[in-house]
């Protein structure tokens, strides 16, 4: 299983442990018996479409939502029934949640005040925290004079200054523009590494998740579909949902038969499968756009015609259609790329066809 492969990469001891966590709102099952462990210093992302339960899980861990069942432990200590203000977790919010009537410095000092830190030490720690997010020059400003990016830096400084056991980030970058988002996520990753702070990060943006995580937990329907390092989630998806959500996929209803195994697609040429594939019968085959290439003249391939070309820099994405009516996305190098209306023959790169069950999308091969 991918889960074990991912966890094995981290020798550090378990810091956060979520076990059998369930939550239902009315008749909507938001979390269905979630198990999750995060090692000390690890950054784990909860990634999924809206309504997948990722924010509910984060808010349960923060203590804002009481779970119906299950346990949350930090360093083996149970948090059941502990109110949010006693958990010592720092949280960064999507809408910044910066207190508008307090200055930047007062915002950052807020959590220290709550902990009764003496004034002198407080000022020192606030100054250090503001320095870390490069906001020292704005310490006396009120939030309405700050940009979105600056407000989120205040949010981050405020969450870090309390030296939390766990940092929770709820889509912290989704209100920022694209360029700032990329910049900030690198900063966040750097800061997280330096401080070695265990972090749980919620996002719906797969690029963001891929770029900053030690491990990604892909969620859907209140269930963690797969939890693994980004490369594993991408290259070795556990099921059709993960494959489709991460990177996208061409989906083909097909039949596996014969020995050696061959993928039969109704109305199209048959494609050879790797010899190890032990699956037979109806399947959903998933092939990523970048895993399709032009077939060699004498090799088996799918005949198709180019419908639309989208130039993406070094690569160009083609939408093609086979004579049987199958529509596929193909990424080809932009140099010498076929034009709209051109005929071509496509073949999957060796070993890049993944097979999933038609009923529940589980990975077959």
């Amino acid at each position, binding site marked *: 299983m991918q889960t074990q492969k991912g966890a094995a990469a981290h020798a550090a001891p378990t810091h956060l442990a979520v076990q059998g966590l369930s939550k239902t709102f009315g008749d909507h099952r938001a979390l269905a018996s979630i198990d999750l462990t995060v090692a000390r210093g690890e950054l784990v992302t909860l990634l999924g479409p809206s309504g997948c339960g990722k924010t509910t899980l984060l808010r349960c861990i923060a203590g*804002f939502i*009481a779970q*119906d069942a299950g346990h949350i432990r930090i360093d083996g200590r149970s948090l059941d*029934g502990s*109110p949010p203000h006693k958990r010592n977790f720092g949280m960064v919010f*999507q*809408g910044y*949640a910066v*207190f508008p009537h307090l200055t930047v410095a007062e915002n950052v000092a807020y*959590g220290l005040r709550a902990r009764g830190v003496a004034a002198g030490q407080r000022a020192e720690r606030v100054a250090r925290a503001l320095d870390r997010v490069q906001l020292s020059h704005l310490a006396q400003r009120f939030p309405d004079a700050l940009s979105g990016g600056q407000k989120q830096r205040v949010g981050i400084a405020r969450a870090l200054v309390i030296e939390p056991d766990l940092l929770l980030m709820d889509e912290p970058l989704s209100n920022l523009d694209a360029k700032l988002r990329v910049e900030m996520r690198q900063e966040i990753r750097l800061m997280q590494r330096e401080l070695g702070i265990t972090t749980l990060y919620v996002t719906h943006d797969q690029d963001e998740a891929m770029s900053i995580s030690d491990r990604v937990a892909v969620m859907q329907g209140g269930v963690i579909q797969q939890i693994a390092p980004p490369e594993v989630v991408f290259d070795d998806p556990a099921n059709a949902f993960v494959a489709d959500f991460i990177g996208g996929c061409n989906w083909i209803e097909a039949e596996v038969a014969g020995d050696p195994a061959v993928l039969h697609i109704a109305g199209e040429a048959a494609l050879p499968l790797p010899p190890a594939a032990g699956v037979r019968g109806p399947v959903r085959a998933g092939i990523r756009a970048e895993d399709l290439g032009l077939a060699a003249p004498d090799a088996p391939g799918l005949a198709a015609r180019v419908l639309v070309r989208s130039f993406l820099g070094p690569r160009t994405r083609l939408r093609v259609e086979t004579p049987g009516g199958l529509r596929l996305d193909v990424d080809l190098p932009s140099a010498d790329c076929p034009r709209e209306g051109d005929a071509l023959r496509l073949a999957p790169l060796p070993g890049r066809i993944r097979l999933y069950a038609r009923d529940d999308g589980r990975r077959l091969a």
Partner: protein
Amino acid sequence: MMGLAGTLNLRRALADPWILLAGAALLFLLVFVALPLAELVRQAFIGQKSGAFGIENFVSFFGSGFFRRALKNSLVSATLATMIALVIGLPLAFVFARFDFPGKPWIEVAILLSMLSPPFVGAYAWIILFGRSGFVTLAARDAGIGLPTIYGPTGIALASAFSLFPLVFLVVRGAFLRVDRGLEEAAASLGRPPARVVWNVTLPLVMPAIVTAALLVFLGAISDFGTPAILGEGDRYPVLATLAYSLYISEIGSEPGMAATTCVILVLIAFALVLGARFLSMRRKVANDSAPNRSPDPLPRGRARAMTVAVSAFVTVTNLPLFVVLISSVLQVRGVVFQPVLTFDNYARAWATIGSALTNSLMFAGLALVATVILGTALGYYVTRRAGPLARAIDLLVMIPYVVPGTVIGIGYAQVFNGPPLFLTGTAAIIGIVYLVRRLPYMTRAAASAVFQIDATLEDASQNLGMPPARGFAGIMVPLMRPAILAGAAIAWVEILNELSASVVLYTGATRTLPIAAYQQSLGGDVGIAAAYAAMLVGITVAALILFALAGGLRNGGPPTTA
């Protein structure tokens, strides 16, 4: 598993101080809002003569010419008042929404002043001017002109309209400000002349607000007790509110069953109005949420000044009742006629007879204000931030007195709290509680709309940073809600201080308040003392508003509207 969830929830509930507060508030509202109304309904269905359960009282109500006349009078004077208030309020709303001119904020305060001074003070001013011995009446008689009487529907409607038109101003101005000016520009670009653009485009867009405002004025007019009591001269021109009062209060032949029936009919009319306004505003929702708020057009200097003069003159007329009361309070009185001689005699005599009325007023209103502000803020927060049946029940109960006329609440209290288990009749507590209950809907709404505009994650952030909820509420929510709380408190203070229609049913000699004293004197008492009392009320009102304007501005205030 269920057991675990149960303990978790129970522990959380006990740890959450809001649950306890909400529970206490619910109990309070059940006793002081639901119970008195339920009792009135029960009594309305118990025959006044037969004592049997049924609709006997309603049959006698509609069978009696006198009762039918009161119903008709209520509807006629309220309709008339609504029309006059629209005529005054609509142009002001338009001008304030669309143009900038010098002195605007002060003129706005003056407009709100007409609303916040007690309605019966206005009524009394009309009598000083146009009553049987009024300045204008006597002057006209000397010139050989006979004026129509101010007693009756015209006077009641005028006095009500002059104190209620600010509602039209506030509600409709807001709507004018929200109109997408792009729509007007589109109409103009399609070749419509400006006047027709306003008529064909702008007016339909603000129509829902106009309807809402009209219904609010109608509700205010039909609920008022003081104005018709003074200008209708009791049973000579009865309306439902004064009828209910006299049916209940009359020492010989008190008819509590018929009083209750009248109350129930009045409440039914009021609820029908509010539901009607809700229905209309939902059905005719004009979709222009995306409209950018554009600031008013600047006018050329000459025209801006001309507008200031015109608007000030207009508002001076609407505030005339206040000036009349203030001036006549320092005029000498001979018999029932004011003389053009300046004197402080009226105040001397007023002071001699005031007894505990002033201290009562300040004390009851002060205590009720503190309770209203604290409870209203807490409940406004609770109903906005907490979902669930408890929050919904509180929200509903707290808003009921917004619709139910004060006289009805007063009669309900007098019926329910005149014996064990809660014997409150004649106490200061019952006056304070009725003040609180009548003002709570406004304070709660003001607080709720403030809370609604505050990002909910601020409190999450506060808790997450380790602040216990109560300290977080004080440190985050209270400062952010402060402008709304201040505005609500200022208006609550003025309204509580001037409360008459419920307290007039409930007071005794020991708990007489200043509005009650002024009301008694203006009903055939000493006209000089009446003027002095009324002037004192106006003075305290103005002082409070000025203090408030200095403290933070009225901009954040204004009455909330349920419709």
